[in-house]
């Protein structure tokens, strides 16, 4: 074990942890007597500085990764780097929204320092799982992230809903962690290793010896554990309650950062599965198998991970799309509506994972989707938070007449929701197009095509419920026309997010090239 290399590889996480501790020290040590407003602002600014430092660290750490012996533990570069930078940026954006929310009556907490440091620690967990290549590291990262999220959900101590949501989230989370561990233990038993590539190889050999039923159980368990993190049907039950009960910035964090990290993890798993022919070639293992040259692998329809895992993901994807979109139609609370729409969006992304490509097309498309979705979701929760603060409710009717009460906020809402619905030229449309094109490019045939058609059809359905909110904001008359005031920094961030959604939508190549820049050219 080379600790210098470990330190270098985990420099971003370390930066975040230092920032987290610094926030606590400054807040509890020096600012105890200062007004809450200033304490919140200082904490958030230190947190943002930590994120910036960590982004620098991601670049500075180089693309070496970290290995113990011959097993790669932490990957670097490629998808991991994209996901890490995205996580840090999204975390910084969620913290920006907290900067000026510290005035006594509007704050959801009196412990701003603790809030910020928990956010940073959870984000560090996110960084770990987006790079992890080993079951143990994955589990540690996931738990670090999840524990942070449970606390964040419960952070509004005055609200019963917040506590209820946190308990639900925690119970479901504990259960799914148990499932995940159970699945991991089977995998270890089948393959004798905790390293992802080794496991794929090992389970192939094991299932060739008749271990397939055990492998199936393991995979289903793991799908349940990870399906919980991304809120895929039928492991989504926590999502609506958590999105509804959690403080708005925490909900935004859950909807964005946690999603991006979990999808980055799923991408690592998918890569490991697809790279196993290359592994066989290198190891020359116990089977006689001539691996095709890199670039054109033709995995035979065979036992092991290869056919099963995509099938599980595909089922989750279809169920999530259908259920999420249909359930969202019936919601009267905008937060629950966003939660169900998040389930639907997870379904679209899972489709990209189910038809995953050996080349980087799919990984890039999935990251593009999850990052842009995360950004949009933060903005959407920001708007909901402002409206909720002014009207005391997140029901659809709270948005009545928003265009008169705060025209800028209404315009931001218009842009963000249309982007979520996938209307061009906003970024949500490009994300969808990119993802579906990647699916069709990866595998021809009737099945992927039918599923893409289904996804597009359901995104047409989704327009209806997004329009329900916009209809309240722009069309229907309001009884209350008193202006809604938003903090300048919050409003500024929201406008910046909306502007980014428009600009990246008009010039989609900007973000695509940025993501592609992290991958070694093939």
């Amino acid at each position, binding site marked *: 074990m080379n600790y210098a290399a470990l330190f270098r590889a985990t420099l971003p996480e370390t930066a975040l942890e230092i920032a987290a501790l610094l926030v606590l020290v400054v807040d509890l040590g020096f600012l105890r007597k200062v007004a809450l407003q200033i304490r919140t602002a200082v904490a958030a600014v230190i947190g943002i500085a930590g994120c910036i430092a960590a982004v620098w660290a991601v670049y500075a750490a180089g693309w070496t990764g970290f290995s113990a012996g011959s097993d790669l533990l932490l990957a670097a570069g490629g998808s991991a780097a994209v996901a890490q930078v995205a996580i840090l940026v999204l975390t910084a954006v969620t913290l920006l929204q907290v900067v000026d929310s510290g005035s006594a009556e509007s704050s959801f907490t009196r412990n701003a320092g603790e809030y910020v440091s928990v956010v940073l620690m959870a984000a560090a967990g996110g960084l770990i799982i987006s790079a992890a290549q080993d079951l143990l590291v994955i589990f540690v990262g996931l738990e670090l992230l999840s524990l942070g999220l449970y606390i964040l959900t419960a952070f509004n101590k005055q609200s019963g809903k917040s506590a209820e949501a946190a308990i639900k989230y925690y119970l479901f989370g504990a259960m799914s962690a148990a499932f995940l561990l159970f699945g991991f233990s089977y995998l270890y038993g089948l393959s004798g290793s905790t390293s992802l590539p080794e496991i794929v190889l090992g389970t192939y050999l094991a299932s060739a010896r008749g271990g397939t039923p055990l492998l199936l159980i393991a995979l289903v368990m793991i799908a349940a554990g990870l399906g919980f993190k991304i809120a895929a049907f039928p492991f989504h039950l926590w999502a609506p309650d958590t999105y509804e009960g959690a403080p708005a910035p925490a909900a935004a964090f859950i909807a964005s950062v946690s999603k991006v990290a979990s999808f980055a993890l799923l991408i690592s798993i998918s890569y490991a599965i697809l790279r196993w022919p290359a592994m066989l070639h290198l190891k020359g293992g116990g089977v006689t198998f001539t691996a095709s040259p890199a670039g054109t692998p033709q995995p035979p329809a065979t036992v092991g991970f290869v056919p099963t895992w995509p099938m599980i993901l595909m089922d989750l994807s279809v169920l999530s799309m259908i259920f999420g979109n249909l359930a969202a139609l019936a919601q009267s609370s905008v937060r629950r509506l966003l939660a169900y729409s998040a389930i639907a969006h997870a379904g679209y992304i899972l489709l990209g994972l189910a038809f995953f490509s050996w080349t980087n097309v799919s990984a890039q498309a999935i990251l593009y989707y999850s990052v842009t979705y995360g950004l949009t979701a933060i903005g959407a929760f920001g708007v909901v938070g402002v409206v909720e603060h002014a009207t005391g409710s997140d029901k659809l009717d709270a948005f009545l007449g928003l265009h008169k009460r705060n025209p800028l906020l209404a315009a931001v809402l218009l842009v963000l929701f249309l982007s979520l619905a996938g209307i*061009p030229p906003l970024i949500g449309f490009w994300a969808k197009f990119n993802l579906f*094109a990647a699916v*069709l490019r990866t595998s021809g045939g009737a099945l992927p095509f039918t599923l893409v058609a289904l996804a597009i059809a359901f995104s047409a359905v989704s327009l209806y419920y997004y329009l329900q909110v916009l209809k309240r904001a*722009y069309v*229907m008359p309001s009884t209350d026309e008193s202006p809604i005031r938003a903090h300048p920094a919050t409003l500024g961030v929201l406008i910046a997010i909306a502007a980014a959604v428009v600009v990246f939508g008009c010039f989609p190549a900007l973000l695509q090239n940025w993501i592609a820049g992290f991958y070694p050219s093939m």
Partner: protein
Amino acid sequence: MAWAIYISFGGALISALLPKAKPEVARLWALAVAVAGLAIAIAGFAAGMGQGRQVFVDALWVPSMGVHYLLAADGISRVLVLLTGIASVAGVLFSWNIELRTNQFFAFYFALIGGVYGVFLSGDLFLLFVFYEIAIVPKYFLISIWGSTRREYGAMKLALYSFVGSAMVLIGLLAAYSTAGSHSTALGDLAHAGLPVSFQMWCFPLVFVGFAILAGMWPFHTWAPTGHVAAPTAASMLLAGVVMKLGAYGCLRVGIGLFPHGLDPWGFSFIGIGSWRDVFAWLAVIGIVYGALVALAQTDFKFVIGYSSVSHMGFVLLGLMTLNQIGVDGAVLQMFSHGVIAGLLFAIVGRIVYDRTHTRQFAELGPMHLSRRLPFAAWAFVFAGVASMGLPGFSGFVAELQVLVGAWQANPWWAAVSGIGIIVGVAYIWRALQKAFFTDSLPTPHEFESEREHKFAPITWPEYAGVALLGISTLVVGVYPRILLDSIEPAVKALLAGGAQ
């Protein structure tokens, strides 16, 4: 001509930022933007006369996916851009009386117009789709905020129908893109990609129906009458005038242009129907007759015009399905002609008459003796009605005649059955004229008294100007159709000869 798009979007943005309290500023700004668009359209039309396809901009938009920002125009595009220019100016003139959130109204209005210009000028399938969707959203807000009868229902129905249609188009787009090898989305490249016949066979109906929903093809037309009736005057003028043309244009440019083999015979026939061409042609014929018959039974003046649009758009689709030079020429000309005439009819019914009488029911309009009290409206409607019936001297005559000749060459039955639609068309216009304007009951002395006390507001200059603009357009094209046909014919010939250029 690309500037028509930029000016419209820029106009929309600035209009949104104009002060709320001063509607007159927003109006003048809107008129300036619309006139600038029309000027560019006319200049582009004149400059493109006699030329083939012109490319204005061709840049890689998303290099990794081969998406081009390609704006180009051929004869068909130029005619439709001209129509959009005329319709947008007329629409601004007839929405001069909008007092509620005027600046927002024109912001949505020009976002829609910009999308429409964009669709007609796109030379890339992807870009076309982007503009097509941009045009959908403003319609929803235009209707649901400034509309009338059952506006939220009409607006939502329209938005969902359009979005379902565009979802079908998107599926077709993705399928064509990946089948052609994921290299480029330019229309020309896709047309030359050699898409397999079996693929075209199922992709063509998907894309065609997707676009035809917006063109009001029976039985997917039901959004059209409710949407038209619910919309404010300018929006229904645009809906009938240009938005339905988007659908028909997509059918022609994408459906027929990219998937010409989708129209080939199936190899078997069922009750005389042996290809997608027969299916859609018969749906168009049914639309012509059905729309006309339903229009004959309406009691709401605006519904009459709404269903007449369904009927007239049937001619466009029928013309497309003839697949011969004269029929498709007629279809494109009919797009222009119906755009102008339907705009005029909606303007008279929805603005000139409704704003003074506050009713559109024939039963209430009859006793008002409008021919005497609003002679301008009555005679303008006679003019527009005659044009709509397709009398010689108006643009509708040339267009429908060409479609019918083309249909006769393709399948005489199509022409014969659509002839019924024309006859019924005369009937419903007569009926509307008589019920709304020229009732034969004489006013009672009491009514005579009250009429003298409640005089209708005089016709304003924007109304005169709008009627004149649309009326002159249809007359000029009716008297001298070559002005458009010279531009349309070569483009149609090229399109029919080799798919898209």
